[in-house]
């Protein structure tokens, strides 16, 4: 035990240094919205902070995980830049509407643009990563660089020998914890339902239900590992703090939809959910994987409410025709190529 504590000491020191450095950035990110000064966070009838409702990360759709290098340490857009982005959003909404109503218009083979979700407000951040200060995912450790990222199939370079060539998302298994909340083109709904002793987060895509005990019980045995890990929550003031461990290694990564280099079985996530207004939760997550990244890092963004937004059943695997079609397409191509050679 002693030996083990000593061996993880450097990690703890790095984590503390990182936490101190990140504090100012996070404090800024978690600042209540203007006009919310006298707002009192609601409580459940049993006295816990009430986070319930359906929230989405839609407002930060399109914000890259990693900040473009030319923006340096600039985390927030200026007021003028935000105004420009707001008018872009308005134009986009106008276009969505036009495409929806205009008859006989030329359309592509992809889904129409009104299928995707849009934020109502422009995201204030230039990247989802808020720490380190350059807004970029830390470097990978050498042992992580060789981990295979399922490349999936694309038209130019089909790699569809087996379902195992596809991501766990495409296979309808899971996007992992961060992949299930980071904003993507649709399905960003997070429905929070609380009971005395529990917080549940229902995520539309791949129908995850994270049941988070907030009753102080210890983690499950490390022998029980899973895609979504073993979450334990507690309250710090009005903030729900969730620590998740017991992940399976080498499945999903810390990218959109769980993409990117797969994390290891040493991954630990600390998430913080803080209600900052009647329709906003500030979300942040510290990603600590000492077998994958050179240091812990933090991602943060707001979760907001949209009137009328609701989760639907996402029967992903039940309707995964894409998998059958990709595999049978690849087999057909092989057959055609073999026939050509004869």
């Amino acid at each position: 035990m002693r030996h083990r504590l000593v061996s993880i000491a450097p990690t703890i020191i790095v984590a503390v240094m990182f936490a101190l450095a990140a504090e100012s950035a996070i404090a800024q990110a978690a600042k209540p919205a203007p006009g919310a000064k006298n707002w009192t966070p609601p409580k459940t009838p049993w006295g816990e902070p009430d986070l319930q409702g359906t929230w989405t990360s839609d407002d930060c759709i399109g914000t890259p995980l990693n900040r473009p290098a030319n923006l340096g340490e600039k985390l927030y857009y200026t007021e003028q830049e935000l105004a420009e982005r707001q008018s872009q959003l308005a134009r986009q909404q106008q276009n969505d509407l036009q495409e929806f109503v205009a008859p006989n218009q030329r359309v592509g083979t992809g889904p129409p643009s009104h299928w995707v979700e849009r934020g109502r407000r422009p995201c204030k951040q230039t990247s989802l990563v808020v720490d380190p200060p350059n807004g970029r995912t830390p470097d990978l450790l050498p042992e992580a660089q060789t981990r295979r990222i399922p490349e999936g199939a694309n038209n130019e370079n089909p790699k569809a020998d087996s379902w195992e060539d596809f991501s766990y998302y495409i296979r309808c298994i899971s996007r992992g914890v961060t992949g299930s909340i980071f904003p993507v083109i649709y399905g960003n709904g997070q429905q929070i339902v609380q009971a005395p002793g529990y917080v549940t987060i229902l995520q539309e895509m791949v129908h995850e239900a994270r049941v988070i005990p907030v009753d102080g019980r210890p983690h499950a045995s490390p022998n029980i590992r899973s895609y979504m890990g073993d979450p334990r929550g507690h309250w710090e003031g009005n903030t729900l703090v969730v620590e998740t461990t017991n992940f399976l290694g080498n499945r999903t990564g810390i990218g959109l939809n769980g993409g990117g280099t797969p994390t290891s079985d040493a991954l630990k996530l600390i998430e913080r959910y803080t209600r900052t207004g009647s329709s906003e939760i500030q979300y942040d997550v510290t990603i600590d994987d000492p077998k994958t990244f050179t240091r812990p890092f933090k991602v943060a963004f707001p979760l907001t409410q949209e009137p009328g937004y609701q989760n639907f059943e996402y029967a992903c695997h039940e309707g995964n025709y894409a998998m059958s079609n990709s595999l049978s397409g690849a087999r057909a191509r092989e057959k055609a190529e073999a026939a050509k050679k004869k």
Partner: protein
Amino acid sequence: MAIQELHLMGRTVMSYRLWGWVLVSAAVVVLFTAMPGTSQTSPRTTSQIPRMPDGKPNFTGLWQVLGTAHWDIRDHGAQPGPFLQLGAAGAMPAGQGIVEGGEIPYTPAAGEKQKDNLQNRMTLDPEIKCYMPGIPRANYMPFPYQIIQSQRDIVFAYEYATSNRVINMGKFKEAAVDTWMGTSNGRWEGDTLVVDVSGLNGNSWFDRSGNFQTDNTHVVERFTLADADHINYEASIEDKTIYTRPWKISTVIYRRKEKNAQLNEFKCVEFVEELIYGHLKKK
């Protein structure tokens, strides 16, 4: 209900019959006055069930049905399993059914379809493919499920296939679209949680024996806490297209009491990919 009370207490005061009656009457009066608004249910049981701050029964917890209804919701004898290699471990145990009256009132054509389903179970049973189980099947599969009850809506998070549903306890919502798990609207009838399930897509079965439903099937469930650790569960099932009359199932749901019991993850997709896509793999 009061009779049960009298019976239980009467035994201890048998030799002092007169005093006994006085004591029992007093006890009943005390029980009734101590619990306003619970006159519809037994004072003995309501004193033991967990309640929300507003007095509603609190179903929050980890629950599971015992028994063999997941094999066949009708009475059934023991049978060998489909795979020789699994031997006794793969066999189907005998069990009492949960269908009231024993038989499902299929129309003749539907009865034939059930037999056909059973014969072709390995290719047709949605459980084998890790598809969502639907309602009511999810409630008595051999897996636990977590109920999370808020001051309004109630979540059922099932371990099998990470399937789940939210019971809307607000204004009744029509099913927007047919789904595997259906659209659940709940209401309270005294201490009973009544859940109306509509918008089922008709792809679900009731068990591993081919008993089936359609997209016209309407299910009304009733959850009543018998005491802190047992839920009396009933579901009435109606579908004029395949049943000649409405019918009912009833069983008991048990609270998982182990100190370290918790909902685990059973993402079964990766256990069925070889089965579903194996023929499309590169040779």
